């Protein structure tokens, strides 16, 4: 009985500790906004010309990108064949090989082997427009 009580109490403490930890992580950002003027640097402007993140989300879903990649916001995208695309906007390089800009990302999505013959990522056979949309969605992942 006492043990069960202790366990519940511990669990509650753990939960509040977790919440605290989350708060602590957010604190610098919040404080930055409060104090203002402390720019966080962050990724360069990542707008993909002509790309729509909304359509991109759909395209990523339809093209089953989640079979190989974990992609936040895409249902069932829990693949571990390729790397997780979590926080993709922050990435400095595409596939660890090319500067992360819209042009490279779009080309990579359309035909990765054309850029890096040994890559396990297949040519997806998506249209230029679809690739732009996908890139727009990925570059919105912070």
């Amino acid at each position, binding site marked *: 009985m006492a043990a069960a009580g202790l366990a519940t109490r511990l669990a509650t403490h753990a939960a509040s500790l977790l919440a605290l930890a989350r708060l602590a992580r957010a604190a610098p950002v919040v404080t*930055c906004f409060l*104090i203002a003027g402390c720019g966080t640097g962050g990724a360069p402007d990542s707008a993909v010309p002509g790309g729509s993140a909304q359509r991109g989300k759909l395209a990523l879903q339809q093209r089953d990108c989640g079979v190989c990649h974990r992609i936040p916001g895409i249902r069932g995208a829990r693949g*571990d064949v*390729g790397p997780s695309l979590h*926080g993709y906007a922050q990435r400095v*390089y595409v596939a*660890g090989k090319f500067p992360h800009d819209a042009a490279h990302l779009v080309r990579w999505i359309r035909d990765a082997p054309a850029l890096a013959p040994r890559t396990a990522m297949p040519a997806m056979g998506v249209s230029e427009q679809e690739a732009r949309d996908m890139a727009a969605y990925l570059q919105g992942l912070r």
Partner: protein
Amino acid sequence: MKARLARRHKILLPLLGAGLLMAVGAVTAAAVLLSGGFEVAATRQHFLLTHRLLEAGLHFSIRTHARDIVAPELGNPQMVEQGMACYRQHCEQCHGAPGRASVPAAMGLLPVPASLVQTARDWPAEWLYYVTREGVRMTGMPAWEVRLSEQSLWDTVAFLKVLPELTPADYAARAAALQGQCPPRSDLPDMRPDVPGDVLLRQYGCHACHHIDGVTGPRSTTGPALSSWPRRSYIAGTLPNTPENLVRWIRDPKAVSPQTLMPDLGVAESHAMEMAAFLFSQR
């Protein structure tokens, strides 16, 4: 009753006061930190008190942590010569030498790299060995234990002990007469195999580009995050993810993926194996 209450207050009030003081301190520290008022520029010097306190901390820490180290016989001229080769190759750039300045990059460092002539005279050999092997955090002094063999570390210490006795002419003459080189660690049989993988990942600076679970470092997104490594199917999107392949990749990335931005870090094989073991132990 009243007396008990009074006694309780006697304990409670100072405790409350101390708590309040700490809270005020924490808030002030946070305000200074977050306002950007604290200047990190290396052109600003420490307060004298800060400097002295840090020095004292260094002194006592080294004294404690080097206490179980026993120096071998250091008088052997061959050791001294080998040590000079290492000193010339790895130390002189920052620490200078008799009659020789350090390189420009080292001159503006804060703290300034010590003039080892004095350090070598004042410190026991064990302390010199300890600092050379382990480095000193936040000073720019790296740990040489993964780059120099045990023998080379002691050779270097042997040379340091001779250093204060050399005139600029002596130093130049010895430098000119130097035969051997400081052997790189990977070529040596006495590599310490007990440096764990996470320490090695840090010692090769992997976390400058990669976020690595279990390694504290910058939030870098230059390379991909190394989290949940065993779940990966491919290394660099190319090689099947096995420990053997990971060792191959770490030691020669360009051979696996010619376009990769990952550089060859000159990782010794046993070190790469330890790193791979660490990454594969992630969940």
